[in-house]
């Protein structure tokens, strides 16, 4: 049984069909890659699934519950978390504070218990603080725990964005271009980190337009173009697909000719 299942998802902005008839499934601790040229609708697809925008049509099922159109904070409670392409950290705060904010769902005991700092509230906070320490340890952020996020190198900030998501203890995390703008070395680090996340039983949906990054990392790949599915399957199969080669290389050749 799959953890996340998306059927016939669609969204149009005015006359523009950003996503049309998109269906895919993600199994427990699976890594699914969504790939496609710029403007293919990848980020819109993540926004639709994670509740940031409401779909025009289609159904999203998470662990056998219909979650279509639920707001992001409810989806976080159900175990689905997503990260953003840019500006995805609290720049003025320390790394630890960033993660504690990500862990809100576990720390927050309700308004009155928080105001009176009840035993339950203290226990929840202590547990979340331990978990946050653990996440920082996995992602190699422990040595910068008390540094302010805006002072960190860009690569660390990208990893921190992922760490904020993981602090919410998700069952599935959707990463929007986690390696965009990173050096080859940093990209390798991000790839290893995602593998480790999966090894801890968390399913991952990762979006990118870098074919190499995705094919090394993912169990299965979904290719999108102009809001629709172009191809899907194992990374090696998809790489050989003629339509995919045309969508990628054809466009680049066309640009080169001008």
């Amino acid at each position, binding site marked *: 049984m799959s953890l996340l299942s998306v059927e016939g998802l669609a969204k149009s902005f005015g006359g523009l069909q950003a996503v049309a008839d998109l269906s895919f499934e993600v199994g427990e601790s699976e890594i699914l890659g969504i790939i496609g040229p710029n403007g293919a609708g990848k980020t819109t697809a993540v926004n639709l699934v994670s509740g940031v925008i409401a779909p025009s049509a289609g159904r999203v099922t998470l662990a056998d519950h219909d979650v279509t159109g639920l707001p*992001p904070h409810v989806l976080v409670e159900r175990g689905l*978390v997503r990260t953003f392409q840019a*500006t995805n950290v609290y*720049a003025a705060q320390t790394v630890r504070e960033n993660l504690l*904010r990500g*862990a*809100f769902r576990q720390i927050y*005991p309700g308004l009155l218990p928080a105001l009176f700092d009840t035993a339950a509230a203290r226990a929840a906070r202590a547990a979340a603080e331990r978990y946050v320490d653990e996440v920082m340890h996995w992602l190699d952020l422990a040595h910068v725990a008390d540094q302010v996020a805006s002072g960190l190198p860009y690569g660390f900030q990208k990893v921190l964005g992922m760490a904020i998501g993981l602090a*919410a203890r998700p069952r599935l995390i959707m990463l929007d271009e986690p390696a965009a703008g990173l050096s080859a070395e940093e990209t390798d680090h991000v790839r290893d980190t995602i593998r480790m996340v999966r090894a801890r039983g968390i399913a991952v949906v990762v979006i990118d337009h870098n074919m190499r990054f995705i094919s090394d990392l993912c169990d299965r790949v979904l290719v999108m173009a102009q809001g629709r599915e172009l191809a899907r399957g194992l990374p090696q199969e998809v790489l050989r697909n003629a339509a995919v080669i045309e969508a990628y290389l054809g466009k680049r050749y066309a640009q080169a000719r001008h």
Partner: protein
Amino acid sequence: MARRRSHYYLIAAAVLLGWPWLTDDKFLHHVAVLICITAIAAASLHLIIRTGHVSLGHAAFMAAGAYVSVLTVMQLRMPWPVGLLAGTGAAALLAAIVGPILLRLTGKYFVLVTFLFGEIVRMALVVTPALTGGANGIFEVPPPWPFLLSNRAYYYFALAFAVFGVGLCARLLTCEYGRAIDAIREGERLAECSGVPVIRVKVTVFVIACALAGMAGSLQAHFIRYVGPESYSIVQSLNLVVMNVIGGMTSLVGALIGTVFMITLPELLRGYVNLQQILFGFILFATMAFLPGGIIELGRRLRGFLRARWAGAA
């Protein structure tokens, strides 16, 4: 460290409780009461500002608290505690009705619409003279209890409410709820995707803050013994914002410093009636120009300077 901090609290308590007996000047006691009451309103506005919204209609909620409290006591012949609860509740109810609509607006749109809301409330008070006394307001409002006719007694009374009101704001900001409030201001979308129910938190904070403003309104009306629409116009709303800005928007202490500054400064300038407004404006302007982070920045700079000196000497 904790012991030193508790010493500071003891000294502060001794000063706040002791100074009224060093002078019989009723006017000083009067100003002190106004500071206590206004501190509640400014601190409650600080709560809203911390969620990332600058409300230009906060005085409207003071008006709701003041009028409902006064009418409950004078028309329904209820004791003052009932009036206080009714006034506070009315302000909270009003906030719970308009909050979910207003708080979906951001930035300048929120500022504009709260300004309009404040004006609507003020106009509603002016055009219903049968109930509210219209533009003249309501005179001869009774004090909560007769013994509170003494300014010194009312000071202790208002101080107790100020400790409660400002203390509630401080607690909200330092507990886990405060972490959510700051997360919303610094990254609303990110907070929502970490499981923070953004609109619910904003509305809850707004309702609590406006209830406190209503409480301050009731305390003020029964102290001045008069309510009128002009006391709760845009000028009062704007003053509350200026208190927050001039004290320092990033901390609750800033709102308190701003309150003391904005209430005492016009009183100190009373000797120069002709120049009062000009001097007041000039001082405000100079403060903002040289201390863009608010008066609280002065303390931070001083601390940094002393630390540097101390490190140099050692």
